[in-house]
């Protein structure tokens, strides 16, 4: 079966969903009642005062809120999206949305991206080990331990870390992405400062991150180790490790690979909880602020980013899956 057909089909599907997501992102805010320009004027002027229509018009021009019928707007919007132009943020006026996202994105990508990758690797290895030694002590410690950690509320855990290591022991800063003494740039002072600030949020993410991968990997692998082809591999006298890796883990990891790619895609949305607790200047906090202050352009752009991130990740996961699991190519293309 030609795998090319599979990949082409996945790509077309990806383009289709991407277009749909972009279009929905355009339509949904426009279906809401109310005029964004009026909203911003009332924000600027303070909630209660009456609004001067001329002022509204001025703001509208400044924000670049499009006129014309829906179709013209749509075309304009597509053009703007292609250029990465999402207009001006209401909250951080006069900064553009793109600027704000550009500021927040690296923080999240580095913190969450790195911890996600570590979580996945560690989780998969621990899960594999637990399954390899299933029903042994090691297995119980790993499975029960991670189940226990999984039941702790993340919020509580994060606050505990802050309390112990920042407030009591004063080993790490309590909040923020960098301290007052440094300013962002490629200098040592800033990098070490940012690193110090990232330790606690990273630890919080690393405690909870691997749990899902551990449990998923262990259960999948216990299952694949019980299957006929694995039993036959044992009967064939294959060394135990070879059986565990090629016949157990190799198959068990498949669903997790997809899950991982999607998780990576989700990074762009940030992790609201951790960024809020640690007051970390990433996408999650930006999203929270945009929502609470009804900053539509910003919100819309973040949602679009997140959707695109997930879609791209999904597409890559599909490609990877098709590459790792020959069965899929067949099923899909018949």
């Amino acid at each position: 079966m030609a795998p090319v057909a599979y990949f082409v089909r996945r790509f077309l599907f990806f383009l289709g969903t991407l277009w749909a997501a972009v279009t929905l992102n355009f339509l949904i805010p426009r279906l809401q009642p109310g005029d964004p320009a009026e909203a911003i004027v009332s924000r600027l002027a303070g909630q209660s005062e009456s609004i001067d229509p001329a002022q509204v018009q001025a703001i509208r021009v400044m924000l670049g809120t499009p006129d014309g019928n829906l179709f013209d707007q749509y075309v304009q919007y597509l053009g703007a999206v292609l250029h990465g132009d999402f207009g001006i943020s209401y909250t951080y006026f006069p900064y553009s949305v793109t600027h704000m996202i550009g500021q927040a994105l690296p923080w999240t990508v580095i913190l969450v991206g790195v911890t996600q990758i570590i979580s996945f690797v560690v989780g998969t290895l621990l899960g594999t080990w637990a399954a390899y030694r299933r029903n042994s002590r090691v297995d119980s410690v790993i499975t029960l331990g991670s189940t226990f950690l999984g039941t702790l509320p993340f919020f509580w855990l994060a606050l505990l870390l802050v309390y112990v290591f920042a407030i009591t022991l004063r080993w790490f800063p309590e909040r923020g992405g960098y301290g007052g003494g440094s300013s962002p740039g490629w200098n040592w002072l800033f990098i070490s400062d940012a690193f110090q600030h990232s330790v606690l949020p990273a630890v919080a993410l690393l405690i909870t991150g691997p749990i899902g991968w551990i449990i998923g990997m262990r259960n999948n692998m216990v299952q694949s180790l019980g299957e006929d082809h694995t039993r036959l591999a044992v009967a064939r006298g294959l060394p135990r490790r070879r059986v565990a890796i090629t016949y157990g883990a190799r198959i068990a990891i498949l669903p997790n690979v997809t899950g991982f790619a999607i998780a990576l895609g989700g990074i762009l949305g940030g992790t609201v909880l951790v960024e809020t607790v640690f007051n970390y200047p990433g996408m999650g906090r930006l999203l929270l602020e945009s929502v609470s202050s009804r900053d539509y352009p910003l919100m819309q752009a973040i949602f679009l980013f997140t959707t695109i991130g997930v879609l791209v990740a999904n597409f890559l996961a599909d490609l990877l899956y098709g590459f790792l699991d020959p069965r899929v190519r067949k099923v899909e293309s018949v």
Partner: protein
Amino acid sequence: MALLEVDHLSVTYTPRDQPANRAVHDVSFHISEGEFVGLLGESGCGKSTLGNAVLRLLSPPARITGGRVTFDGVDLTTADEEKLRELRWVDLSTVFQSSMNSLNPVIRVHAQFADTFAAHKVPGDVTERATELLELVALDRRVLRAYPHELSGGMKQRVALALALALRPKLVLLDEPTTGLDVVVQRGILTRLAELRRELGFAVLFISHDLGTVLEMADRVMVMYGGEIVEDRRAADMLREPRHPYSRGLLGSYADPRLPDVRVSYIPGRPPDLSRPHTGCLFAARCPHVEDACRTTHPDLLPDRHGLVRCLVAQSDRLPVVTLGSADAATTLGSHFPATGTLDRPADAAEAAPVLTVTGVSKRYTTRRGLRTSSVEAVRDVSFALRPGVVTALVGQSGSGKSTLARIVTAVERPTSGEVRFTGDDGTDVRVDRLRGAALRDYRRHVQMVFQDPFSALNPTRTVAYALSRPLANFAGLRGAAARERAAQLLESVGLAPAGQFLDKLPHQLSGGQRQRVVTARALAPDPRVLIADEPISMLDVSIRAEILELLGDLVRDRRLAMLYITHDLLSARLLADEVLVLNQGVLVERGPTREVIGAARDEYTRLLLDSIPNPFAKAAAG
């Protein structure tokens, strides 16, 4: 010393949420170098468990609770992992019950051979060796580059066999190596296996519930019942005079469909529940020769006429004597069990006006593979008629188009050309291939199906009463107490009496045969005119197949149903059907009254199908 010695081996399953199950109990036997031994018994009697215990592949909740397995002087039950690994495959290999899943789905066939050679440090070129092995089982070397899912069932089975022979083992354990395969494919594999054994001289433990196959292939046969071996003797002796009543019952379910008078018997009842304690003979509840002593004394496996048997009556030589000619062996053997022969039909049936007429029907499937499209003609210019009170068998190999025709007749699919007409009781005439909406729904109540797999045809979480209430509500508008009453009548009409015992049972509380009866009752619920039975007995145990056939035959006669019986099993077609249609690659190659078609097949393909049926009696007659 024999090659394999099993001494007083017992295996128990101890699942967490269920009572412990003594699946294998005190089993002892030997296999000598080069010997071909068959292990026969119905589903759940412990064959695979015994096989896995011999291979030391049992995993929790199964555990060896007693006894020893010695292979070539090595005690497998206590050997350490490394010792075992050296012996595995080099001396002792296997083909699993379902080779469908016994190859790793994500690596190529080549890699699975390479793994095997590497594990035992076999020098030389993998491709070259693997190609030779594939040639042994008549497979092309291109298979090496394939992933398992790209191979057909028969091909996978051959790959598994080639793999089993890769290191020239001394003993190969084959667990139902051909079950579920087409008769013709099965024949091919068995023939090849017999040749290979002659060439290579390995010993075989051949597990199967298919008595025809085992008796034909094996030097010696062991019969297992309820986790115990109940009879062990040479195949030829077993054919001449089986000594255990259960063996007799099994043998009675086999017959040569070509004989002028064909009768098969069945063993009523169910195997014992091994999670409960038993005193006396485990077979007592189903045995036609049972005596008082049988219920209190558990018989031992004792020598008896060059073999071993576990039966009090046989041991004291009071079992009725049977002398078997080769021709009507089954008839005689079956005589102590309920038996069913070719079923009588009212004489006028053949002249009755057809209910369903299929004229010149063709079906073309177009498949898109990547950018290319190809089309297959699944059925070509087929015509036949179904009449009330008549069973028409549609036989053919898998892929011959049988199920496509079934889908066309039940209006699940439309033919590409040709027409299907249905004539109702009131003389109305409808074009089935043009039906839609309400008319289609109305038609479906007249044409019902009984499926192959009674295990998946019923929702495991719903009671029997519920399963029957659905069609009663949909087609007959019956609800509540009225529906329940009708459901009870239906159950009794399929032999599940008293119905009260079955209405509130869940599918898993029923045996395979009982489930198939429930499925049949459900098909009868809308009071159909036509019944399409697609391999209704192929998933059932041999010992109960005849029982379901008899039920279907009775229903056709009593309710004047028209029935299309789809099968690749010519023996059951011979028993049940009045006329036979032989389908080969979508074309009807032969048709006519059953006895003529099967007794004196003219078409070459029909003869191939007939020759593919395992026939132990032919072997007995020849040697």
